[in-house]
């Protein structure tokens, strides 16, 4: 077995630690709450020589993403952390990074979007990036965040993929909460993700042009290539997770099922609230409700087959979303994916209930989710599901 050291780390620090252990070559970071401590920790690593990397003190998140694109295009392993307005500000460049097929990796401490201004956690920032061509992991613990950053490099840099990746964790609830994390020796991490550049790079000995114009004769094919890379990433992410488990003893799957074996109704949760939902499932089970939980770990690419299989015997599924898609038929970003999985054969579909919760870090109690379980049970027994999103914890 490989050597592990147990440390007490916040998720911010766990993510920074993972980047250090991945021996990143270039960091370009800009402070933004709640990801700032991760940027500070990375600077500390470089400052005291624990990490041999160039740290670019960019003047904005847009430039952070741009500098990473430049660095990755030279063949560097490149990393940053950000959140909220910063992620949205980066988004123009992240679309391009995907189109250029550059495997940069980002840690995102998800936070609400203004206005009104909120520094608190929710998933409004990551939600709009779902179509940008980025691999997106949702993680639920500091340990999972640490492990997922390392896995993200593995997947992003795989020749079948070559796409940027984000490891998304909850602002404050995770970013600032200390948990025990078993960190891996850098040498062992690098056995898992050896430094091998397989993507297109700028090299004077073999000059190529990166970032050309795609006219109507070509643009479509290049977009489709990205889609194929995304499809490949499902399998690659699964392989990466299995190999990780084999080497380091921890695996997560693309989705994590909890008490789903005999479940009649299910909740889908992601991020920190998957932990709350797990406790709620136990409590609801005590009251005789046959509810299970699916923790969504990989949001992009969407693990459609895994999820459909997990939901095979469920009559009602409630999706606990953490952002509001304003004006859409359902407000949650994930619930729309769940519904569209069944579009070609609705007869296979469970009934879907859409929930919004923890918006702007509104507190969610275990009882709130026990109530959701009970409600799902009522829906299963024939009560009509509202044809809209149910807002948990909202004052009338």
């Amino acid at each position, binding site marked *: 077995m490989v050597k592990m050291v147990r440390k007490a780390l916040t998720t911010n620090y766990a993510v920074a630690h993972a980047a250090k252990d991945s021996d990143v070559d270039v960091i370009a970071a800009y402070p933004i709450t709640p990801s700032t401590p991760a940027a500070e920790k990375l600077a500390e690593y470089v400052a005291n020589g624990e990490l041999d990397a160039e740290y670019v003190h960019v003047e904005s998140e847009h430039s952070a993403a741009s500098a990473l694109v430049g660095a990755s295009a030279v063949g560097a392993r490149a990393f940053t952390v950000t959140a909220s307005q910063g992620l949205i500000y980066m988004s123009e460049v992240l679309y391009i990074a995907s189109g250029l097929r550059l495997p940069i990796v980002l840690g995102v401490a998800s936070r609400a979007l203004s206005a009104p201004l909120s520094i608190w956690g929710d998933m409004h920032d990551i939600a709009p990036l779902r179509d940008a061509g980025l691999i997106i992991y949702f993680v639920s613990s500091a340990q999972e965040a640490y492990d997922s950053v390392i896995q993200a490099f593995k997947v992003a840099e795989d020749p079948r993929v070559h796409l940027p990746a984000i490891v998304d964790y909850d602002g404050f609830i995770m970013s600032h909460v200390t948990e025990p994390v078993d960190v891996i020796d850098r040498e062992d991490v690098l056995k898992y993700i050896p430094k091998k550049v397989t*993507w297109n790079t700028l090299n004077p000995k073999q000059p*190529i042009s990166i*970032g050309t114009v*795609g006219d109507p004769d070509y643009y479509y*094919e290049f977009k489709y290539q990205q889609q*194929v890379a995304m499809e490949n990433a499902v399998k690659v992410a699964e392989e990466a997770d299995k190999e990780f488990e084999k080497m380091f003893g921890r695996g997560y799957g693309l989705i994590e099922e909890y008490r789903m074996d005999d479940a009649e109704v299910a909740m889908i949760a992601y991020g920190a609230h998957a932990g709350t939902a797990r406790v709620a499932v136990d409590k609801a089970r005590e009251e005789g409700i046959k509810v299970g939980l699916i923790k969504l770990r990989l949001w992009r690419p969407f693990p459609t087959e895994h999820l459909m299989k997990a939901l095979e015997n469920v009559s009602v599924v409630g999706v606990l979303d953490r952002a509001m898609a304003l004006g859409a038929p359902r407000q949650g970003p994930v619930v729309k994916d769940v519904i569209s999985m069944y579009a070609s054969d609705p007869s296979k579909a469970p009934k879907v209930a859409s929930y919004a919760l923890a918006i702007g870090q509104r507190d969610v109690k275990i009882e709130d989710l026990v109530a959701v379980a009970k409600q799902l049970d009522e829906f299963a027994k024939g009560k009509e599901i509202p044809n809209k999103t149910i807002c948990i914890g909202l004052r009338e």
Partner: protein
Amino acid sequence: MTLPGWKELPEGAVVREPGNTVTISTGEWRVFKPVIIDEKCTRCRLCWIYCPDGTIIEVDDPNAPLGKRYEVDYEHCKGCGICWKECPVNAIEWVPEER
């Protein structure tokens, strides 16, 4: 002409043949063409310096005065006329294109 499908195209729309625009002809753009009168040419090189498109070619020729002469790459010359204007000894004529 059949264009390549997505499987055949390089990842990320990179171009791996540096400088391959050279295979594109821009000579058809011309309305006038520069014609170098070698006997008048002093080999001052200014036409070569100023040509935006690099279409004045400096050719080594041991039999020519100062060992070189200048030719126009008519395949690519767009006919802007800078060489004609800038030639200090009027060694470039500006001739209407006949096609």
